[in-house]
C-alpha cells in the first residue's frame, strides 16, 4: 500500500508495537484465566506467587469432583447441537425462498423477524415459566432449551443465510435449468456446493450463540437440562477461595468456543453485518 510506504521510520516501529500492545491487553483477561487455572487455589491469591508458581493440573483433574463439569458440558453440547440443527432446518428453506423468490412482503417479513430479537426476554420470562411448568410440563427439559435457543437465534440465522444466498448468482441456476437439470440435480450439484460455506459458518455462529446463552438457559432449568452457563453463574461468588478451580472450569467452558471462533471470524463479519459491509 502506498500509504504505508510513506510512513516514517519511527512509524514503522511504533504502530506495529502499539497494535501488538493493544492486542495483548485485550487478550490478557483470557490469558490470566488460563494461567490461573494451573495454580492451586492457595497460590492463586498469593501476591508472591502471582507469576512464579509450581504449575499443576489438579484443577482440571478434579473438575468432576468439584463442579460435576461433565453433566453440564454434555447438556451444553446436546442443546447447542440440536438447537443449531433445528434452526437450520427451519431457517434454510425460509432464507432460500426469500432470497431466490422474493415477494413484496419479503423485506417487511425480514425486518419483522429481526424485531422479534428485540423482544426483551425478561418481559416474557414469567409466562414462559408458567406455561412450561404448569401446562406443558416441559420445564427444565433439554427439549425446551433446544426450542428456546433455536427461536432466539432464528432471526439472526435467517438474516445471515439470506445474505449468503442472495450472493449466489442466479444466472448459474438459470443456466442449469436451460441445460435440463432436474430440481434435485439443481440443488445437489449447483446450489449446495455454492451455499455450503455460508450455511456452515452460519451454523458455527449459531452454535456459539447457543453455547454462550445465559438468560434463558439459567432461568428455565434447575438440574436436568442445566448448561455450562448455569454452572458458571452458580459459582459467581467464589470469595477468592477457589480461583484456581473456577479458572479451570471457566477455561473448559469457553476454550472450545473461542477456538471455534478463531476459525470463523471472517465469515462472522460477512454474516453479522448482513452483507452491508463490502
Amino acid at each position: 500500500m502506498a500509504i504505508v510506504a510513506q510512513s516514517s521510520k519511527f512509524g514503522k516501529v511504533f504502530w506495529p508495537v502499539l497494535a501488538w500492545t493493544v492486542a495483548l491487553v485485550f487478550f490478557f483477561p483470557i490469558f490470566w484465566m488460563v494461567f490461573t487455572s494451573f495454580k492451586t487455589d492457595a497460590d492463586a491469591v498469593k501476591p508472591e506467587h502471582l507469576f512464579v508458581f509450581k504449575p499443576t493440573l489438579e484443577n482440571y483433574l478434579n473438575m468432576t469432583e468439584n463442579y460435576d463439569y461433565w453433566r453440564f458440558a454434555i447438556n451444553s453440547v446436546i442443546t447447542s447441537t440440536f438447537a443449531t440443527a433445528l434452526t437450520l432446518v427451519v431457517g434454510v428453506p425460509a432464507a432460500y425462498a426469500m432470497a431466490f423468490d422474493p415477494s413484496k412482503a419479503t423485506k417487511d417479513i425480514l425486518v419483522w423477524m429481526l424485531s422479534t430479537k428485540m423482544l426483551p426476554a425478561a418481559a416474557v420470562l414469567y409466562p414462559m415459566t408458567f406455561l412450561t411448568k404448569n401446562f406443558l410440563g416441559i420445564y427444565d427439559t433439554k427439549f425446551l432449551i433446544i426450542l428456546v435457543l433455536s427461536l432466539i437465534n432464528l432471526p439472526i440465522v435467517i438474516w445471515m443465510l439470506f445474505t449468503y444466498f442472495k450472493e449466489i448468482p442466479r444466472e448459474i441456476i438459470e443456466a442449469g435449468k436451460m441445460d435440463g437439470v432436474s430440481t434435485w440435480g439443481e440443488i445437489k450439484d449447483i446450489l449446495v456446493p455454492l451455499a455450503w460455506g455460508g450455511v456452515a459458518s452460519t451454523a458455527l455462529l449459531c452454535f456459539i450463540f447457543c453455547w454462550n446463552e445465559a438468560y434463558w438457559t439459567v432461568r428455565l432449568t434447575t438440574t436436568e437440562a442445566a448448561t455450562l452457563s448455569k454452572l458458571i453463574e452458580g459459582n459467581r461468588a467464589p470469595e477468592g477461595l477457589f480461583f484456581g478451580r473456577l479458572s479451570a472450569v471457566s477455561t473448559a467452558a469457553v476454550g472450545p468456543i473461542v477456538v471455534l471462533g478463531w476459525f470463523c471470524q471472517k465469515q462472522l463479519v460477512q454474516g453479522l453485518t448482513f452483507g452491508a459491509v463490502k
Partner: protein
Amino acid sequence: MSKRTLPRLLQTPAVLLLLMWMLVPLGMTLYFSFIRYVLNSLRRPEWTTPSLSNWRGFGNYEYVLFKAKDFWFAVQNSVLIVGSVIILTVVLGLAIAVLINRSFPGRGIVRVLLISPFFVMPAVNAVLWINMILDPVLGLNGLAVAGLNEMIAGLKSFPVLGGFFSLWPEIEPISFRATQTSAIAVIIMVTWQWTPFAVLIFMTSLQSEDQQQKEAAILDGANAWSMFRNLTLPHLGRPIAIVVMIQAIFHLSLYAEIEIVSRGNGNKNLPYLIGEFATNNIGAASATGIIAVILANIVAIFLLRMVGKSLMD
C-alpha cells in the same frame, strides 16, 4: 401449484414459529399486567391465582411508573450502560481498526488475539472480571495497588527522594462492588467483549476503501487526519450504524453481567428490575415487561429505519 406456493410454504414454519414465540408469551404478559397477581400473599390469597376477577386496570402500570422507587433508576441505568458501551466500542473499535489496517509482522496473530473476547461466555466474562481482575482485595486491582503502596513505602527510606515520597498518600483500590461503581464494572466488561466485534467489522470495511481516491488525496497534499475525516469516516457510516444496531439489540437485554457483579445492588437495568418484581409481584413484573417491550420497539423502529434500507440492496 401456483408459482408462489412453494416459496410461501418454505417460509411458513419460520414465520409461524416466530409469530407464536412473540404472541403467546407476550399475550400472557399483557393479560397479567392488567390483573392483581402475586405468588405469595397470606392476606389476599385470591390474588395468588391469575383470574379476571382480580382486574386492576392500569393499576400495575401506575404502581411501576410512579410508586416503585427503582423504575426510573433502572431506565436511567439501562441508558447509561447501553449508551456508554456503544460509544466506547465504536470509538475504540475505530481506533484499533485503523491501527491494524496495515501490514506488519504478526498481523494474523494480533487479529486472533483481538477477536477472542467476543467468544467468551458472558457468564464467564463477568465472573472473571469481577473476581479475578477488579476485586479490590484478591483481584489484580487490589494486588497492583498493594504492590504500588509497598514500592512507595520502600522508596521512603531513600536518603533524598524519601522525603518526597513520604508525602505520597497510601492508595486505596477502587471497589467495583459498590453502588455506583458496579455499573462501571459492567460497562468495562461488556466493552471488553464487544470492542472486538466493532474492530472486526470496521476493519473489513476499511479494506474495501477506495485506495486510488486516497492516493489522489495524498497527491493533493491532504494530511492523514483530513483524509480520515473526509474519506474514511463517510465510508464507515453504514458499518457504524450496524455496530450500533446489533449492540442495542444485545445490550438492552443485558442480565448475567448485572446479576453476577452486584445482584442488582444499586445497579439494575430494566430486565433486572423485572426479574426482581417477578419473585413475587407478577402483575408489576408484567407491566414493567410491557413498558420494556414498548421502549425496545421505539428503539427498534428507529434503528431499523436507520439501516433497514441499506440492508436490502
